[in-house]
Structure formats: C-alpha cells, structure tokens
C-alpha cells in the first residue's frame, strides 16, 4: 500500500462520512428543503432566554400566555376605549366631535392608506363594495358606500360605525386610532364625492356640545 492510496482512501472515507451525515440530516428532518420539521439548533447559546416575549408561550403562567389580559376595569396606558355601544346611534351624533384634524393632502393620503388596509377587503378600493371576496360570492349584501343613503350619513355617524361596528360589520376601535378614523372619513368623502356634514343631531343638542 503506498501513500497515494492512503490519501485516496482517506478522501473517500471523508466523502462517505459527509454523505452519511447529509443522509442522517435529511432523514432526521433537519434540512428544510426536504422537511417541515423545526431546524436543528447546534449550540443554542442564549437563543432562548427565560423572558416574556410577545406572542410566545411562557411557562411562568398557568395559561401559558405571555401577553396578559388587563385586570377588569383598567385600561392600558395610551389605550382609548370607545365608550358607546353599537346601538347608541343618537348619542353618537353629539359625542363624536372631530378634534380638528386638518384636511390636507397628507392626511387624505393617510386616510386612503388606512381605508385600503382596513376597509377595502369588504368595501373595495373604490367603496363600491365589490372586492374579490364579493365577486367570488362569498359575502353578499355589503352596502355600496357611495350610495346616496350612506353619503347622507354624518361624519359622527360614520365614526360611530367604524368604532362600534354595525350589524355584521365588526368594530375597528382597537385597530384604528381616533385620528386615523377621521382621516378615513375625509378620504371616504372624496370617494363619495360629497362634502359631508359633521353631525345630524338637532341644533339644540349641538349647542350643548
């Protein structure tokens, strides 16, 4: 046996070992090209620390949720609760007053952005309520927001619908900040092609405001 042979043999052994390692990796499901198992972690130094991370399980609490629900009767800092229920339509007309959000191009663009994110799935980008979901006949009977009836709703009322929902339409109070809601209303008015009125409440109650 000469040295070249020995080196050759070493080479083949190394290659076979590498191949065997690869096969083991594949079979044990550690290469994501072939498997859906969680990738293997070698030496996971401090990858997983015992701290609360949003949206992860946490063994510290019995229900394993790391995000805790608020104690009853309390509100998180900065959180704004919409005080009215879905049925309080009369109160809505006087309660929802625009805090003076300016109607600039920039705010309109923000309104469009939020409308496209939160409303377009059901009401379409043009507010005609004809998005793919409706075209596929999955949800019928969503009203066209540009129809005169809806255009006649006051700003305060639309604010109420966004915040509290209406029948099958869910509430978006937890996802859209109050300022963004006014921006959406400005943008919706441009789609409807109307000026809009602040409130439909009788003049006397408006004075109280």
């Amino acid at each position, binding site marked *: 046996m000469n040295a070249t042979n020995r*080196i050759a043999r070493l080479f083949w052994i190394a290659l076979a070992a590498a191949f065997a390692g690869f096969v083991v990796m594949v079979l044990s499901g550690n*290469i*994501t090209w072939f498997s859906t198992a969680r990738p293997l972690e070698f030496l996971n130094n401090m990858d997983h620390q015992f701290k609360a991370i*949003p949206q992860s399980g946490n063994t510290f609490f019995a229900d394993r949720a790391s995000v805790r629900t608020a104690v009853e009767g309390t509100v998180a800092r900065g959180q704004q609760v919409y005080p009215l229920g879905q049925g309080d339509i009369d109160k809505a007309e006087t309660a929802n007053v625009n805090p003076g959000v*300016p109607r600039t191009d920039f705010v309109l663009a923000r309104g469009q952005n939020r409308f496209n994110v939160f409303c377009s*799935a059901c009401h379409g*980008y043009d507010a005609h309520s004809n*998005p793919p979901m409706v075209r596929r006949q999955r949800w019928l009977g969503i009203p066209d927001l540009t129809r005169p009836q809806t255009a006649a709703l006051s700003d305060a009322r639309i604010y109420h619908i966004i915040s509290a929902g209406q029948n*099958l339409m869910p509430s978006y109070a937890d996802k859209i900040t109050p300022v963004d809601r006014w921006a959406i209303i400005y943008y919706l008015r441009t789609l409807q092609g109307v000026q809009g009125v602040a409130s439909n409440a009788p003049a006397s109650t408006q004075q109280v405001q």
Partner: protein
Amino acid sequence: MFSRRFDMGVKIGGAVLGASVLCVFLVIFFGVRNTVADVGYRPEQPVPFSHKLHAGQLNISCQYCHAGVENSAHSPVPTTQTCMNCHTAVLPESPKLQLVRDSYEKGTPIEWIRIHKVPDYAHFNHSRHIRAQIDCKSCHGPVEEMGVVSQFKPLSMGWCLDCHRNPEANIVGARPISGVFTGQMHKVKDLLDSTYLYKPIPAQVAAASDLKDMVTPSFGQKQSPLPKYHVDGIPHPKKAGIGPENCSACHY
C-alpha cells in the same frame, strides 16, 4: 517500509486535510447555517390558513391582519377575532375553520407555530423598518404567493448588516398590498388593477410643508416626523440613530 520523509509527508497531508475539513465545517456552521437550516422552514399550522388565498386573491392587506407593525417591535399574528370579522359571515360552517370557531367561543388563542425568530439576544424592531417605508417583501419574500408561509431570508446577522451597509440593493419599495404608509396617494383606478397592488411604488418624501402634519395626526399618534436622510426616499440606516452597525443597536 516507507522512508521517514514519505511517512512525514502523509502525516502532514492528513493534518492539512483534517484542518481543511474543520474549516469547511466551521464555515458551514457559522456562515451558511441559517441559510441551509432555517430558510424554507415551513411548519404545518393548526389551521390550514393560506396567504395566497387571503392576501393574493382576496387582496386583503398585510396590515389588516398584522395590524400594529407600524407601532410595535413585533408584528402581531392576528387574533381569532380578526378571522371572525369575516368568517362569521363567510364559510361559517367550513370544517377547516372548526378550530377558529372553537377558539372564538372558548377564548383560548390558536397556537400558531412561529416561523421567523431571531435569537433572544438580538432585538429586531418592525416599526423602525416599516416607517422607513421598507416593504414586507424585502425580508419575508412574496408571502402573498405562499400557500404555507416559509422563511425566505436567513435572518442572520450578516443579512441584517448587508442591508444596513447597502440598503439600495436590498430594499423592495413599499407596495400597496402591504399597507406601508408612504404619504403618497394612489389613483383608485390603479388600485383596482391587481398587478399594481403588488408592484413596488417609488418611495416618496412628504413635502416639507407636510412634515409638520405628521407630528399631529401621526402614525398611531406617536410623534414621529419622517427621518431626514434619504436614499431614494428611504432613510439611510448609516445616518440613523446610534448607527446600525453599532453592536448595541441590536444587542442590548
């Protein structure tokens, strides 16, 4: 049998071979581990939810479900309530949604299996990047074409730094489907053409006079004027904060 010199040669050869195998191993281990082991990770989820259907075909914006990425470090995976916004009326009987309905009635969260994860000693913040008008696609790939989400980028430190050093080459500009706010209006006619929805739109800097507005009705009411330094409208990380190559920007 062999001359000493020859024997020595073989030993050195063996050592060199061993060392190079070790080097290759180390390079693989530290260099491409994330790419080989993590990219393509696509666990089976408890509910057969499809992004291709919801985002790609129904045109639901990423932020409809992942609402709050603008303001928080983490991008929330939607609550059951979000699914039920539609699924009380859409396919209310579907067996595939049984788990969602159970979760809704009992108030227990659906345990989605987490895919993207940087180690706990590194901190990644979504809001910083979303406000810089970087599209989700830059980091998550074309999710709206995925039936099952799979990790698209290695999420290694080298990958973060590659973009921070050379953002021009790595950033996909904001697309309307992602709901990333650019301060720019779209033509409604364009939006109805679904190819437009998935095209990156050129990032834009709000006009100087508009920057003031952002402080009042700002993103999620946090006082945040647009960052000042821009590469094609995207703030350049080299000019930002404490500097994105500073170890303590990410390790703290």
